[in-house]
């Protein structure tokens, strides 16, 4: 009963967003239903496309899972994008410097990515707890720094032999790429990682003392402190875990998708993850399907450009509309429940 009620805003929002999207597509001069079919076909039409969609799903899911941890703890960790970039930088450093075959280097690159993301998030955390800087501003600022560091490394110390170009570093040697299957870009390791992370975050929030403390600090830090929760340590751990998962997303992007460091390595996934988590109302079990839906929209809307000559950013517009409607309808519900229209 309770769960069904909760699902209502999501259903209404999806319907409303669909109606508005169809209207927008019509305005743009495209046949709306054909366009929607094209998006779906572009995302799951054949094995290769499904592989692309899944590989787009993995980093988005990882970053979103990390965000759930920080959001539950009441931390507006808006700096995920920077933490994803930091993870990609860390993984790139490992892939370039650590000698050996994939069995050694790939786990090391993923681990360094996790650490780099965690450190980047912890910086925002320490700025908050010790510097009195709101994590929204700290996170945004650190995001710009991470972006600049990535660009500097690409055109500076890590530039390709002979040319300094923002198109990226030299690709990694092939043995440190995440292994793929079936001639597609699908990496089972990456998908397994994402599934494992979803499960771990679920178990953490549901069954551990740390998860309970996160919720307590998130809902009321003053009470949590009186109840014996070490609030600062809990906040910092939440940042470290959330940033670590965002860093893992960056490491997967570098070693599994781009196979090098590019300036736009995060590609807005950090911000997209915020939308995923808002849509999921901070509940981890909803993150996987919603991230999949977003991945389908992102990958599939490339077809709109190829086939209908529409700008592929229409996919982003659809995602934005959807989130706006969910927040709007959730807000209306809260207003009416209190009896003040």
């Amino acid at each position: 009963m309770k769960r069904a009620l909760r699902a209502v805003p999501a259903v209404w929002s999806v319907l409303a967003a669909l109606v508005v999207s169809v209207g927008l597509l019509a305005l743009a001069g495209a046949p709306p239903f054909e366009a929607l079919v094209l998006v779906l076909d572009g995302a799951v039409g054949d094995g290769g496309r499904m592989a692309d969609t899944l590989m787009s799903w993995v980093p988005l899911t990882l970053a979103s899972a990390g965000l759930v941890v920080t959001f539950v703890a009441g931390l507006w960790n808006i700096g995920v994008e920077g933490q994803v970039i930091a993870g990609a930088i860390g993984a790139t450093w490992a892939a370039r410097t650590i000698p050996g075959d994939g069995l050694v280097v790939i786990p090391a690159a993923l681990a360094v990515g996790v650490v780099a993301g965690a450190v980047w998030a912890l910086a925002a955390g320490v700025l908050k707890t010790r510097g009195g800087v709101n994590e929204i501003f700290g996170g945004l600022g650190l995001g710009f720094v991470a972006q600049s560091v990535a660009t500097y490394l690409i055109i500076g110390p890590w530039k390709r032999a002979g040319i300094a170009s923002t198109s990226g570093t030299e690709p990694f040697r092939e043995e440190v790429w995440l292994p793929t299957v079936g001639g597609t870009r699908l990496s089972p390791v990456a998908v397994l990682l994402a599934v494992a992370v979803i499960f771990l975050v679920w178990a953490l929030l549901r069954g551990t003392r740390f998860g309970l403390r996160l919720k307590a600090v998130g809902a009321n830090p003053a009470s949590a402190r009186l109840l014996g929760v070490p609030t600062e340590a809990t906040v910092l751990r939440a940042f470290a875990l959330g940033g670590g998962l965002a860093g893992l997303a960056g490491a997967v992007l570098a070693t599994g998708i781009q196979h090098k460091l590019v300036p736009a390595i995060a590609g807005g996934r950090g911000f997209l993850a915020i939308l995923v988590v808002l849509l999921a109302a901070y509940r981890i079990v909803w993150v996987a399907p919603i991230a999949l839906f977003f991945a389908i929209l992102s990958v599939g809307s490339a077809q709109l450009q190829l086939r209908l000559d529409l700008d592929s950013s229409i996919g982003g517009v659809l995602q934005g509309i959807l989130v706006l409607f969910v927040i709007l309808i959730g807000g209306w519900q809260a207003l009416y429940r209190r009896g003040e229209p």
Partner: protein
Amino acid sequence: MLELRGITKRFGSVVANDGIDLDVPPGSLHAVLGENGAGKSTLMKILSGFLSPDAGRIRLDGREVPTGSPRAALQAGIGMLHQDPLVCLPFTALDNFVLGRRGRIDRAAARREFGELCARLDFDIDPDVRARALSVGERQQLEIVRLLSLGVKVLILDEPTSGISSEQRTKLFAALRTLAADGLIVLFVSHKLEEVEELCDRVTVIRSGKVVGERTLPCPADELVELMFGEVVVSSERPVVEIGSPALRVGGLAAGGGRQRIADVSMEVRAGEVVGLAGLEGSGQRTLLRVLAGLEPVRSGTVEIAGRRVDGSSYEHFVAAGVHYLPAGRLEEGLVPGLTIAEHLTLAARLPEWVVDWEAARIRAEEAIEHFRIKGGPDTPADALSGGNQQRLLLAMMPKDLRVLLMEHPTRGLDIESADYVWSRLLARRESGTAIVFSSADLDELVGYADRVVVFFSGRVLADLAAAELTADRLGTLIGGKVAS
């Protein structure tokens, strides 16, 4: 004439108001009496437009009052003074006074009107002082004159006497009598019997969302208590307890800053002793309690628990020394909204396990619910509990062995039955040698439960007296800063 017909309001499965009818003629001082959670506040919020009823109508002087809009209610002549007066703190008294008026504001005329209204009701407020600098009682007075200037014919007061001094209470009651004599309808919402008896001429008693009776005052108190609770409550007897060695000693303590500052506070509390902290809100009691709980740093002076210095230590150190603090804001600094009873008890148990055993947590919660008679289940969120049940949950969360128990307004907002229950649990702690220090704005509570009362006035100890030599009246004068005889 104010007429309410069939007012009904549900919150989920809870029926807060169940077909309430009420008639109040002009010039009445009418009380709405009921225990916590009886539905008084809901009814008043519906009357003043803050909540929409599911059914029912309101008429004033024969005209229908639109429901669900505070503005419409105010235009119809119904104004409400909330428990925490809704004044805009950074504004001056005069700015607050003209707030909510429509059209051009003539400040000179408003100033004249403000002065006249204050003079008529014997209120003394400087129109140019910022509301932040006014006491709670003065903010109430400001709200009353503002509502009068907007032309209200019905003035609702929701528990207006919590947190104001006895002098201000006397002034408030005198003003309400003046207003009623002029033909205004005064609706006085309270769970305090004595005040209703003192002020009002008629009373409607509400229980579980229904009107259970109406009486003309004076009428026997037993009758009203029985109407409120359905059974007569007997106050718990105080057990005689041996007073032991010093559990808490404070020497020359200074702490806090600004209006919260305390200075030169020295006191000793022995095991099994109950000490009440009296004083106007913000006279230093809260700062002292928070310092003793380890939540605020000591500027100078010493704090000893069972003979060991603890000043300068962390909160965790105070907890380990056997200190426990029950703050007044239950949902603000005691409980976590959204977390369930089982989750609260799990956190409070401070267990070393990393993985929570929810089966054990459920059993622990069920035991606590039964033992402390909490109305709720293990999975009920704390914010869905009534005030009395929230306080019971806080009691259930107290550690077993305590040296010093610190409490801020332990029974604020509770009805007699809940308050009595809370105190019976607290006093039982004395037998195991716990020293109790509590602050309260309720003089009867201080005189009734404390062995000694320490009176605070602007951050300093004004008097330290045995409760046996005190009466509520004498204490009331002391709180105002007068050391007489």
